[in-house]
């Protein structure tokens, strides 16, 4: 029977929640990574990686080759050597094709080919529309605009998509040498200087057919049937067009999950009623999944990397909240239980299935 390990990246380190293939009983280990804030923790081929940033000591990636027993930190190469760009954190990680990709703030994508020991800057998307503005402090919101989203094509190592906060999706098919904006059809509820960019993509995911993409945007939920070349909004039927987290069903191209949140300052689940929403028909209709979740008084927020699946035959779905709960479903979201209740605020949830 496999081990199922949920990696929870939190404001105070990484935690590992472990069960077997039944996914009923869970144990919690941690905190790891010296309690550094962890923005995204992932698993790849027996290794755990946690992107972290300390206010004192800067950004880095923690790595563990023994499922959390020991950890090492490395940031060699994770810096902008020249110019005005400053690397304040690593926002997202993706593994594949024997390589790790890291999205940074300020926006840039780094690559490691030695298991996060050393890193090389692939691109800061120079020359792309919006590039100068997203690095201009006078045009940024509080904080910085970074690159939180990375999506690697499972078949083509040179092809991947990145998300620049507030500007949208860019695709490369030559490992970062050249890029194309992929935002056609998206909605922006604000004026745009250039119709190609200026979209606030919160989470970009790929369906198992490796052609369809879905996204949760600041302005609605959208589907692309041509790998991002054009987008169609599929928000109708959801209680809110706003949210951060999203995950595709691992076996059904028409299956997709989001967690709608109130927009504005709240950014928590509407009416204090915790729920994940699912479509089984590519966004034509939506079902609220809330059996086992609190139906009142649950003002829960979930961030962009906070929703994940384990990819098992009957997929488990997991989400972590900004107030430190982790909920799990072993039946595709039909029923839920809380598997951790008192963690620090959760920034990311990913799942490793081992054995």
């Amino acid at each position, binding site marked *: 029977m496999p081990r199922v390990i949920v990696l929870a990246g939190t404001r105070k380190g990484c935690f590992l929640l472990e069960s077997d293939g039944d996914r009923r009983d869970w144990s919690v280990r941690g905190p790891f990574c*010296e309690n550094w804030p962890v923005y995204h923790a992932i698993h790849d081929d027996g290794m755990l990686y946690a992107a972290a940033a*300390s*206010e*004192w*000591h800067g950004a880095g990636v923690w790595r563990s080759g023994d499922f959390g027993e020991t950890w090492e930190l490395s940031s060699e190469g994770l*810096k902008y050597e*020249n110019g005005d760009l*400053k690397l304040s954190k690593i926002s997202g990680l993706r593994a594949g094709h024997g390589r790790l990709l890291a999205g940074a703030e300020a926006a840039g994508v780094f690559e490691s080919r030695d298991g996060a020991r050393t890193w090389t800057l692939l691109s800061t998307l120079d020359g792309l529309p919006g590039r100068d503005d997203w690095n201009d402090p006078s045009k940024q919101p509080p904080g910085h605009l970074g690159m939180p989203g990375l999506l690697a094509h499972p078949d083509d190592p040179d092809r991947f998509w990145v998300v620049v906060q507030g500007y949208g999706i860019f695709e490369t098919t030559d490992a970062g040498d050249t890029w194309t904006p992929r935002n056609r059809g998206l909605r922006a509820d604000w004026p745009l200087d250039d119709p190609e960019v200026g979209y606030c993509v919160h989470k970009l995911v790929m369906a198992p057919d490796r052609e369809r993409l879905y996204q949760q945007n600041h302005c609605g939920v959208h589907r692309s049937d041509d790998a991002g070349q054009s987008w169609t909004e599929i928000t109708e039927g959801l209680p809110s067009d706003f949210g951060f987290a999203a995950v595709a069903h691992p076996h059904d191209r028409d299956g997709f999950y989001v967690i709608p949140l109130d927009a504005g300052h709240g950014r928590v689940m509407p009416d204090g009623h915790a729920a994940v929403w699912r479509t089984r028909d590519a966004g034509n209709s939506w079902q609220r999944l809330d059996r086992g979740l609190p139906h009142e008084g649950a003002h829960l927020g979930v961030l962009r990397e906070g929703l994940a699946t384990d990819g098992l035959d009957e997929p488990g779905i997991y989400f972590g909240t900004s107030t430190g709960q982790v909920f799990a479903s072993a039946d595709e979201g039909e029923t839920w239980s809380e598997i951790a209740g008192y963690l620090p605020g959760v920034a990311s949830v990913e799942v490793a299935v081992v054995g």
Partner: protein
Amino acid sequence: MADIHLPPTLPPLFPGLPRQLELEAATVDEAIESLDERWPGLRDRLCEPGPALRPHINVFADQERAALDSAITTTSRVDVIAAISGG
């Protein structure tokens, strides 16, 4: 030799790194370079490109606020302090 005191957040990152040690250096930058030679990567935990001390890292040489180019002597006490911040 200069008497170097490090914050408690550093030793967990570098096996064998003590909280206090003595070393030869003429400036704060040389002291950090000496530490980085023995514990590779340590410079990046205290400095950012420029180079400059990270914004939340404070260095005091003989109780005076210091920068990377500040001089130290064989009798100096150098305190590296992580700012009181966070929550």
